[in-house]
Structure formats: C-alpha cells, structure tokens
C-alpha cells in the first residue's frame, strides 16, 4: 500500500487525519464558536425571535447575583477538593505501593469509588447525609451528639458536597500515582538507605520531585473536574438551599434547560471556557520549570 510519489503521500496523510479532524471540528471547534456567537444574541421564542444584542448578556451576567454566588461557590469547591484529593491520593498510593498483606484488596477498596457512577454515589451519600435516618447522624447520635441537617444548612452543604467529591476523586488520582511510583528506579531508594536518609527526607527530596509530571497531569485533571462535576448536584441538592451549593456548570444547565435561555447559558459557558483555559495555561507555565522530566 505504500506509495512512492510525495504527492500521494500527502493525500494519504490527510486521509489518515480526516476522521479525527472531523470529530474534533464537529464536537469541539464548531460548538465553541457557535456558543460564542450565541452569547451575543437574545433568547428566542416563537413570539419574539432572537436578535443581536451585543454584550447585553454579559452585562446582565455581571449584574446577576446568582452568577457571582455560583462563581465563588465553584472557587471554594475547587479549593476544597483539589489539594485534599491530590494529597490523599499520594498517601494512598504510597500505602498500597508497599508490599502488605491484602494489598490487592486494599488497592481495589481505594479504587472502588471511582468506578461507581456519580449518580449512584450521590444517591448513597444522600442517605448518609439525611438528617435523623442517615448514616452520619446515626453514628453521631450513637456517640451522644445531636444530628445535623448537612444538606439543608447553607453553611455545611458545600462542605458536604466537597467531602463526597474528595471521596470519589482521590481513588482515581491514586491510580496515576501508583503507576508513577512503580516506575521509580529502585536504586534510588537503595542509595538513600545506604546514605542513611530518613523516609521523610527521601520522600520530599526524591520521590515527590520525581512525581511532579504526574502531579501536573493530576492537577490539570482535578481543576477540570472541579468545574465539570455536576451530576451529583441533581441528586443531592439541586444547587440549594438558596444556591448555597450551586456550581457554574449546574447553573448553565438550569439556564439552558429549565429556563430555556440557551443564549444566557452560552454566555456563562464562554466564561467557563475562558476560566478553564486560563487555569490550564497558568498551571503549565508555573509548573513547567519545576518539573523534572526523565
């Protein structure tokens, strides 16, 4: 099948690229541009057709108190989930990387939350958090504390969602760390032992720096996830009470499908896209110099 003429090889190359390019354009580039265009138009209905309103949607967004609330919620959610889940992931990976009795079982146990669908997880935790009959309250009551309405109190609801998300995410990130740990050369550890380095010193000076490429990958994923996770809100809180647990993507969904305002939803989506792009770029530039690639 190999063609010798350079012209044919170009054609061949393009043909190979075509399927991926079509998918990329149809599902990534076209929707992105369409979203941007839609955000400059007003909501359409049968009675009043959509018209160009320039930055009107963006002005409305800046004046929308729910938008600001949702944005700050999302930042707290990111701050609450990312460092915790990454730290727990490293600890879990270090634990199951050693040879322990029941190691396989332990690895599986840590990874289980990840393979469960988010809706199922949320349903399980809904009953954990339920006042009076929920697992958490039953344990608290058994210990003599009074229960708490975790999802019904605006002060605790976001925290409750964060805890569940960390539980779900940490196992997923653990897998990457575990894979990275198993590729670390054994000689380093042996050398460190000969030199009399403590475990702690060895972790900070050798293991952790060598894990940096994995950390960058995991961090970018974690940031994306913290803006992408939304399924659990449908089950747990519907963004309530009074928007205390509402996140950006859920608010986009509400606007698009509950209020039938795809144009305002597009506006919010543009903000989300810009935010994610900035965060990803920042991470690349900040971390790139500090990463030791082998």
């Amino acid at each position, binding site marked *: 099948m190999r063609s010798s003429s350079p012209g044919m090889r170009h054609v061949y190359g393009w043909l190979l690229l075509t399927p991926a390019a079509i998918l990329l354009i149809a599902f990534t580039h*076209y929707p992105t541009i*369409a979203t941007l265009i839609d955000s400059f138009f007003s909501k359409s*209905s*049968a*009675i009043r057709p959509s018209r160009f309103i320039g930055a009107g949607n963006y002005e409305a967004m800046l004046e929308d108190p729910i938008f600001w609330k949702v944005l700050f919620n999302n930042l707290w959610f990111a701050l609450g989930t990312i460092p915790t889940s990454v730290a727990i992931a490293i600890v879990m990976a270090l634990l199951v990387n050693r040879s322990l009795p029941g190691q396989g079982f332990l690895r599986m146990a840590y990874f289980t939350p990840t393979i469960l669908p988010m809706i199922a997880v949320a349903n399980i935790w*809904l*009953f954990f958090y*339920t*006042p*009076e*009959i929920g697992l958490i309250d039953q344990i608290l*009551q058994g210990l003599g504390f*009074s*229960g708490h*309405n975790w*999802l*019904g*109190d*605006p002060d605790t609801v976001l925290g409750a969602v964060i805890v569940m998300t960390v539980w779900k995410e940490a196992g997923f990130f653990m897998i990457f760390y575990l894979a990275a740990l198993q590729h670390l050369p054994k000689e380093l550890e042996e050398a460190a032992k000969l030199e009399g380095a403590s475990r702690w010193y060895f972790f900070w000076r050798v293991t952790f720096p060598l894990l940096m490429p994995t950390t960058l990958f995991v961090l970018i994923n974690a940031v994306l996830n913290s803006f992408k996770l939304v399924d659990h809100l449908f*089950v747990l*809180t*519907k963004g*309530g*009470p*009074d*928007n*205390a647990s509402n996140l950006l993507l859920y608010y986009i969904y*509400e606007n698009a*499908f*509950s*209020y*039938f305002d795809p144009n305002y939803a597009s506006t919010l989506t543009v903000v989300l896209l810009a935010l994610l792009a900035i965060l990803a770029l920042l991470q690349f530039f900040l971390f790139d110099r500090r990463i030791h690639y082998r």
Partner: protein
Amino acid sequence: MFKRLKKFATGFALTAGVCFASALAYAQTELTMYYPVAVGGPLTKIVDGIVDDFMKENPDIKVSAIYAGNYNDARIKALAALKSGQPAQLSVMFSIDIYELIEQDAIIAFDDIVSTTEDKAWLDSFYPTLMENGRTAGKTWGIPFQRSTIVMYYNKDAFREAGLDPNKPPATWDELVEAGKKLTASDGSKWGMMIPSTGYPYWMFGALSMQNDQVLMSGSGDKTFFDAAGTVDALQFWKDLGSKHKVMPEGTIEWGTLRQNFLEGKTAIMWHSTGNLTTVKNKARFDFGVAMLPANKRRGTPTGGGNFYIFKQTSEPERVAAMKLIKFMTSPERSAEWSIKTGYMGVSPAAYQTSQLKDYVVDFPYAAVARDQLNYATAELSTFQTGRIRKALDDAIQAALTGAKSPETALKEAQSTADRLLRSYR
C-alpha cells in the same frame, strides 16, 4: 454552513420518513409519548400496562410510551425531540409548563382539535379545579392525568403514644403546632412534622399561602403576589415551625427522603403528594392516616402533577389517534385503575362513580382525601418565564427557612425579580 447542513439533514430525514410512513400509512398510526414520574413506586409498569391495553383495543395505533425522568427532564426531552425534527405527538408534562409550551409554540389547544359536541362535553367532564392549570387565554391546552394535591400523612400510633386522638388530625395551624409539640421528642429522635423544602418548595408554599387566604399568582400568568402580607405571614409560619415552635427540623427538608423518614417513624406528620399514597399504604408498618391540610384563614392546597399535551407538529391522523389515547387513559375506568394503583386522584367525578373506585374508597377512605380537598384547591404556581420565577420563589423560601434572610426581605426580592421578568407580558 450550519443552515445548509440542517436543511440537508431535515431533507434527508423527511425523505426517509416519507418512505417509511407510506409503507405503514394504511396499517398503523404511530405515536410517541413521553411521560414523567415524580414520586416513588413502580409507576412506569402501570403506565406501560395501560398503554398495552390501549393497543390491544386499537390495533391500528402503535404507541411507544417513553419514561422521561422527572417533570423537568420530560419537558426537556420532549422539546429537544421537537427541535431535532423528530417530535413526539403527545406527552404528559408538568401541568405548570403550559405558558412555556405556548410561548415555544409547541402545543395545540384541544379546542382546535375537537369538533363534535360529544368531544366538547368530554372537555368539561373533568374536575374544574384540575382544569385551571390547563386553561388560559380562553382555551384548553392540557388534559389532567396524573394529578395530585398535597395531603397530610400522619402516624396514628405516634398520635396514640403522645396522647392525641388518632382519629382527629389537626385541622388548624394552632392545632398543628399543639399536636406537633406533643409529638416531638425532646432528644431530637422524633419530630412532630416535616414539610419538604427541596424539589418543589413553591408547591408546598402554595398550600401555606392559600391557607392564609392569599394565592401566589394571577390566572393570566403575568402577575405574582409574593410580597403580599398573607404570603409573608405564611412563610413566617413555615419558618416558625422549625425555629420557634421546634416541631420541625430547622433548615431545608429533603423531598426525596421524606417518605422514608415518615415510614421509619422519624416524623409523625408529613405533607406530601397524594401520589405517594399507595406506596405508603404498602410499606407502612404502623397505623397511618391521611387528612386534608389544616386551615388558618381557610383550607387550601395547590393541585399538582401532570397533564396531557398534544404537540403542534402533528398530522391530522396523529391528532385523532392521540385524542383516542388520551380519552382512553383518562376514561373513568382507567382513571380509577390509575388512582388505585398510585394514589393520584381520579380526574373526573365519573371515575369515582365506577364500581372499582367506589369499592376501593369504601375499603380505604383515604383514597378520597385528595379529591375531597379539591373543594379548597387552587392552581399550582404557573406563570410566563415560569422556570426563573419559580426558582426566585424557591430561593426565597430556602433563604428564609435557613435563616439567611427574613421572610419579608426574601419575598420582596423574589417579587421584584418576578416583576422584572413579567413586565413585558402585561
């Protein structure tokens, strides 16, 4: 570019559709129907059963009934199908979606389909209160199907333990608070009552405000009364149940797990949709009762639930077939069967005249509570821009219940949001 693509796609779909349809034209009319389920229990099986019966009686009509999630999901799926050019012909959707559907130009009024005097009489055969949410601008857009009111479920055993008369459920707000105090255990293991405030808070609030003799919106769907004195007092009372009288947990109460709370005896009273009745009946391991909601200035509850709608993008034979199906599913016999199996109310007086439902009510009088309560009922909150306005009210209710804002401030804000959204419709 996109337009051309769309044209091409519709053209292709049309050609394919025409070929397919002409092959079947003489044989069958095909109907696609979406329907939602908003309460627990095996409701999909019951719907499928009724639809199967219909197809047995009408072999020339093929119905695919598609379960489409909760009310919100059902509307989204139906409208998405409509926009993609593969519309359903009819759907059960939230009764309060009416203005949104009209504004989207998605549905056709039943008055424009019925022609015979018999059909016109059929339109008037349902309970008028149930028709309130289906009628606006002088036309009928929705036919009641899975309709409910809020009823008060109470645990008779708990009443006995607390020294209350199990056959005398609280009939006023004062009696409710009084009974609630007796039913609440001081260690917090048992509560007097629970009113859910997630999922559909505005619905529960419609009951409270009406009991305070104040409706939430005008019949034309362009005006709300969120900051009226009666409304504010009603929200204050709801909040007081938790924070002042301590007969209900503070904060918000989950719609989805409330029934479980009631069944486990953690609350002696719950306000919930009558659509839960049969499940509670089957699962309660204690003696329970069902009563009308208590009164303050008067009794009151909003109706709730789903109506049948016929979409505009339908052919003449499809409309005829859809009408047949709707008539079948809302006929007195089927309505009675549906009511017995779920707890939703029979939609017409004739349903309660069937021997089936008559016997059932004699045996289980609570099956008639929702119907009797219709005498005091009003339409559910439904306006233009309904999603946003409902959300503004939901947020206000939750802000007040969690103590973030006073009921008055919260409702004033909700009203000004509603005013802003509705200005252009007046």
